[in-house]
């Protein structure tokens, strides 16, 4: 295998890990606190997901660049300072220049500090890896988090309020107003699904489905690998 090939292989693995194999929510079961608090609608899920992705990429990059300087014993406080400063920085910059977006995301940004998944990535990956793979790892893990949040928010929103991507144009701009759909007109709402306990129930169901899918995939692979017998 040539140098570039093995590198490509490595990048593909990082991508697959973030999206599915080692997904923050589905596999690592991290970041459940912001997850349950925010995913009452698909738009909210998407908002927190994107904000987290940005912080994750930046935190991974900074940690990777500083890994030669930061000694092992003090790496955790050092990393926490990096993450907390980044979040504060992004909060202030968004508030000053992208104020309408900040009004929608404002609630989520301080929540990012509580997200143990970011410290997890910095600790287990970026503090040992070169810059480029660390950037990719932040992107993959962040987008993996984003799609799970958006899906969970979507399920809860449809079941709880009968809409999907309500107020998406407030988050993404007027071009995305077409995303806003009413799935069940005149729906009276199911409060339980919108409140945090509903989040736990739906998350449980999603994890069960993920397990089943993986089981089926493994079985299929086993069948495909088995020698064909008889006729």
């Amino acid at each position, binding site marked *: 295998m040539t140098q570039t090939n093995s590198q490509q292989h490595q990048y593909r693995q990082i991508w697959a890990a973030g999206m599915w194999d080692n997904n923050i929510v589905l596999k690592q079961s991290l970041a459940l606190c912001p997850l349950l608090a925010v995913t009452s609608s698909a738009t909210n899920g998407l908002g927190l997901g994107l904000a987290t992705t940005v912080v994750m990429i930046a935190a991974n990059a900074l940690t990777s660049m500083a890994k030669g300087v930061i000694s092992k*014993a003090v790496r955790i406080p050092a990393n926490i300072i*990096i993450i907390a400063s980044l979040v504060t920085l992004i909060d*202030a910059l968004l508030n000053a220049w992208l104020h309408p977006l900040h009004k929608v995301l404002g609630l989520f940004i301080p929540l990012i500090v509580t997200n143990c998944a970011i410290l997890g990535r910095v600790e287990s990956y970026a503090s040992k890896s070169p810059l480029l793979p660390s950037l990719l790892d932040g992107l993959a893990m962040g987008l993996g988090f984003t799609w799970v949040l958006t899906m969970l928010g979507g399920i809860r*929103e449809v079941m709880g309020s009968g809409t999907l991507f309500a107020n998406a144009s407030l988050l993404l701009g007027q071009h995305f107003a077409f995303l806003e759909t009413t799935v069940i007109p005149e729906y009276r709402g199911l*409060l339980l699904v919108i409140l945090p306990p509903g989040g736990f129930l739906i998350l449980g169901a999603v994890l069960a489905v993920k397990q089943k899918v993986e089981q089926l995939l493994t079985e299929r692979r086993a069948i495909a690998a088995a020698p064909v017998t008889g006729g």
Partner: protein
Amino acid sequence: MMQLALDKWKESIGYQSGLLAAICGLAALILVLVELWTRPLINQRIEEDQNALLDEVLAGATYANKVFAKSEAIDIQQRHYEIFTVKNGQGGTTHFVVRGTEEGFSGTISFLVGVDTEGVITGVRIISHSETPGLGDKIELAKSPWVTEFNQHSLANTPLWGVKKDGGTFDQFTGATITPRAVVNGVHTAMQALAKNMEEQPHDAN
């Protein structure tokens, strides 16, 4: 040999405390600079938001003074209200704006009420709240026109301030009664606070 000595030095207490201090200092410096840089911009944005809300509660009426610069505080029924006076170009009072808070279903609801000199509501808007998304958040104009029901109401023409479930005048939402009830109570008390304030120190209305 050189590398080894360097690694050993990195494990020393001196290096580690120095490193942490340097990181803290650098982070603090960056944050202070960004704070200094963005603070005026953020204040400007907040002011713009407030003025946009002000335009809405005054139903587009024009004003010539800096409304939020000066306020009168008034306490009524253990609640705190701030009353702002809206003046026209000639210095005459045209409207009053009351800012108040009320406990909702899950936290404090902060609102703004615009009232003309006759005591008739020109508009009510919610400044901030933390009600249940999809249920209680229909008090926001972006989500539902409910809050415009207050327009044209006054203490004189509305004998029963309450939601219809309690025999009052205002609608509740399906699935959420506590939130609209809180807003109706809050606006009612704000109107009483304004009336009390007018009695105590009558403003010239022209």
